[in-house]
C-alpha cells in the first residue's frame, strides 16, 4: 500500500510538473492579452478582444490591442487602461460587471444563494439527525466486549465495502 502511494505521488507530480512551465518561463509573454481578456471587442462578434483578433481579421480588435500596447509602453497600469476603454465605449466594453452598485449583485448572488442553501441544508441535516432516537446502550460492557464489538464493526465495514 505504501509503495503504491509513493508511486502515485511520483507519477502524478512528475506528469503534471513536467508539463507545466517552470516559473521562469511561465509569465505570459504578452501582457496585452491579459488586459484584452477583460474587454469585449466592439465589432459585435461577442468575443473578448484577446480572442477576436485571432479568430477573424478584426480591425477594431486590432486597434484596441494597439492602444493597449501603446498605453502599456507609456507606463499605464492594466486597471487604468481598462478604465480608459470604459470611458471611451461605456460599461458595455467590460467583459465582466463592475464590483460596485447594482452590478455587485451579479457577484454576490451566486455565493449568497449557495451559502444560504448550505446553511439551510446543514440545519436540516442537524434537525433530522438530532430527532432520531438515541443509540441503545452498548450490550457488551467492558474492554473485552468493546474490543469484540469493534472487530465485528470492522468486519461489517469490510464486507459492506466489497458488497457496495
Amino acid at each position, binding site marked *: *500500500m505504501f509503495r*503504491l*502511494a*509513493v508511486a*502515485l*505521488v*511520483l507519477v*502524478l507530480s512528475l506528469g*503534471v*510538473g*513536467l*508539463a*507545466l*512551465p517552470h*516559473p*521562469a*518561463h*511561465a509569465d*505570459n*509573454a504578452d501582457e*496585452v492579452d491579459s488586459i484584452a*481578456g477583460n474587454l*469585449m471587442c466592439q465589432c459585435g462578434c461577442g*468575443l*473578448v478582444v*484577446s*480572442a*477576436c483578433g*485571432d*479568430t*477573424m*481579421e478584426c480591425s477594431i480588435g486590432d486597434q484596441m490591442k494597439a492602444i493597449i500596447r501603446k498605453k502599456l509602453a507609456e507606463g499605464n497600469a492594466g486597471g487604468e487602461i481598462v478604465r480608459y476603454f470604459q470611458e471611451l465605449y*461605456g*460599461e*458595455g466594453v*467590460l467583459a*465582466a*460587471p463592475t464590483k460596485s452598485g*447594482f452590478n455587485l449583485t*451579479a*457577484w454576490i*448572488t*451566486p*455565493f449568497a*444563494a*449557495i451559502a444560504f*442553501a*448550505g446553511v439551510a*441544508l446543514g440545519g436540516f*441535516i*442537524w434537525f*433530522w*439527525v438530532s430527532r*432520531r432516537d438515541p443509540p441503545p446502550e452498548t450490550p457488551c460492557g467492558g474492554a473485552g466486549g468493546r474490543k469484540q464489538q469493534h472487530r465485528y464493526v*470492522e468486519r461489517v*465495514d*469490510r464486507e*459492506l*465495502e*466489497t458488497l457496495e
Partner: protein
Amino acid sequence: MMTDVGYVALLIGFVVAAYSASASFIAGRTGQKELWVSARNAVWAVLALTSLASAAMVYAFVSRDFSIKYVAEYSSRDLSLPLTIASWWAGQAGSILLWAWLLAVFTGVVIIQNRRQNQELAPFITAVMMAVLTFFLGTMAFAANPFEKLPTTPADGLGLNPLLQNEGMYLHPTTLYLGYVGFTVPFAFAMAALITGRLGDEWIRSSRRWTLFAWFFLGMGNLFGAQWAYTVLGWGGMWGWDPLKNAGFMPWLTGTAYLHSVMIQQRRGMLKVWNLVLIIITFALSLFGTLLTRSGLLSSVHSFAQGPLGVLFIGLIIIVLATSLRLLWERLPQLRSEHELDSFVSRESSFLFNNLLLVGAAFAIFWGTIFPLITEAVRGVKITVGPPFYNQVAGPIFLAMIVLMGVCPLIGWRKASKENLARNFMAPLAVSLGVAALLYLRGIRSPAALPAFWALSFVAATILLEFYRGARARVRGHRDGLLAAVPRLIWANKPRYGGYIVHVGLILIAMGVASTMIYSTSVESTLASGETMSIRQYDLTLTSIDQFNTEGRQVTAASLSVTKNGKPDGTIVSEKALHENHDNPVTSIGLRSNLLEDLYVILVRANDDGTASFKVLVNPLTTWIWIGGAVLLVGTAVAFWPDPRERERAAILPTRKPRVREAVHV
C-alpha cells in the same frame, strides 16, 4: 413537391401527435385497452410522418432546392454532400425538426421497451412525450416552418457559415441535441410516476439508462463544442462562457446532481421530492438550452418581441414548470422519506452537499447568463457577463465540487465512524499533499493551480484506493490475481465502477482545463520569410507564405519550420481562408499535440509587405481533456451495460413500506 410533402407531414404529424397525447392520457386514466393500442399506433404514425418530413428536408438540401428559404439560407452549390446534409441543423427551424424527429424516435423506443413492463406508467409516459412533440410540431407548422418558400428562387444559396464547415458540425450539435431531447424521457417517467402515484424506485430504475444516455451525450456535446472552439475558432481557448455554451452546461450540471441523488433514493428511499425537482429543472433547462441555441434570445430583452418562437418556448417552459410542480405538490404526502439521515458524517450528507454545489454552479451560470437582461431592465444599461466573471465565480465552486468528488466515496453509508474516516482519508490525503508539496518545490505556486492540482490528485488517489481495496477483496475472496481482479471487479458492479471510471475521465478533463487556463503561454510576432520567433523550448521560422484558390475558398497558408530544444521538429502550417459569399476570413490553426503540451499557431494576418503576423501558444496538458472524454465514454458504457442480475435483484428486493410516523418531506 417534396417541400409540400414535408410540410403536410408536419401538419398531419401535429394533429396525430396531439391525438396520441390525449388518447394515451385518457387510456391511462380509464384503462381502455383499445384506446391505448390506438394511441401507440398513433406514435408510430407520428414517427413515420416526422421521418418523412426529415427526409424531405434532407432531399431539399441534397437536390439544392433553393426555393426553400431555409435551404437557401444555409447551403450553397459548392458545399460537400456531408456538410449539405448537416446543414439540416444549421439554423433554427431545422434544429427544431431534428428535435422533433429524435423525440419521435425516442418515444418509439420507449414504447418497445415498455411492452411488458411499467404497464401503468407507459400511457402517461407516452402522453407526456407526445405532448412535448405536439408543441415542437406545432411550432414548425405555425411559427417556424422549415419548408417556407421564397417568392423567387435564387440561383445559389448563401452557403453555410464557414465556421461550421468542419467535422464539429456533425458531432457537436447532434450530441447536444441527443442530450437535450434525451432528458425528455426521464422527465416523462417522473411525470407518469406523479400522475399514477407509483412513486417508488420503479420509475427511476426504468429511466436510469435514459438519464445516463442523455447525460453522456450532453456532456460529449459540450466537450465537442469545446474542441470545435479550440480547433476552429482559433483563439487558443476552448470555453468562451457565451450563452450557448452555458445553455448546454446548465442541464448537464443539474443532470449530474440528479444521477447522484437518485442513488440515495434507490438505497435508502430518501430524497424523493428533491429527485423529482431535479429532473423537472433539468428538463426545463434543456428546453431553455434549445431556445437559446438557435434564437439569440439573450442578445437583448427586446428580442423577446422579435419573433413568436421565444414567447412560445417561454410559454412551454412555464407550462412544464407549473404543471409538474403542481403535480408534485399534490403528491407530497406520498413522497415521504422511508428513512432518515443517521449522521451528519455519512455518504448521504456528502451527496447532499455535492448536489448543493452542482445546483449552485448551475444557478451561478444561469444568473450570469441572464444578468445582462436584468441590468438592461433595471438600469437601462446593457452590460456583458463574460469569461472573467465565470472564471471567478464558477472556479471556486468547481474546486469545492472536485474535493467533494473525492470525499463522497470515502464516507460510508448511514454513518461514518472516526476509524472509518481515518482509515479512508489517510492515504489519499497523504498522496495529494505529497503531490502538492512536490509541485510547490517544482515552482508551481499559483494560488489557483496548487489547490486545483491538490484536489485533483486527492480524487485520483481516492479512486485508486477504491479500486485497490475492491481488487484486494476479490483476491482474498475469489483467489484472483491482482491484475485479473480489476476487470472482474468492474464487471461485477458495473454502475459503481463505471461511475468511478467516469470520475477519472472528469479528473483528466479538469486537469487539462486547469493547466491550459492557468499555464498557457503565448507570444505574438510579425515575421518576414526566414525570421524566427521563440516560445518556451520551441523556435519557429517562417519558411513560406502561399496563396491559392480551392473549393470556393481563397487560402493564404503560412509554413513555419519548428525546432524543439534546438533539434528540427518538422513543419507547421496555419491558414486564413476567405470563403465566397462571406466577408470575414476564417483561421485554420496549426496544431501539434502530444501528451505534455500543444503547440498552437494562429496566422493572425498576411501583411501587404510580405510579412505575416502570428500568435503562438503553448498549452500544457490540453490533450488530456480529449483523453478524459474518451475515458468518460468508457465509464458511461460500463455503467450503461445491461446486467442480467438487475432483474433478479429487483425481484428479490422487498417493496419498501414507508414509515409514516417518522416520515418527513425532502
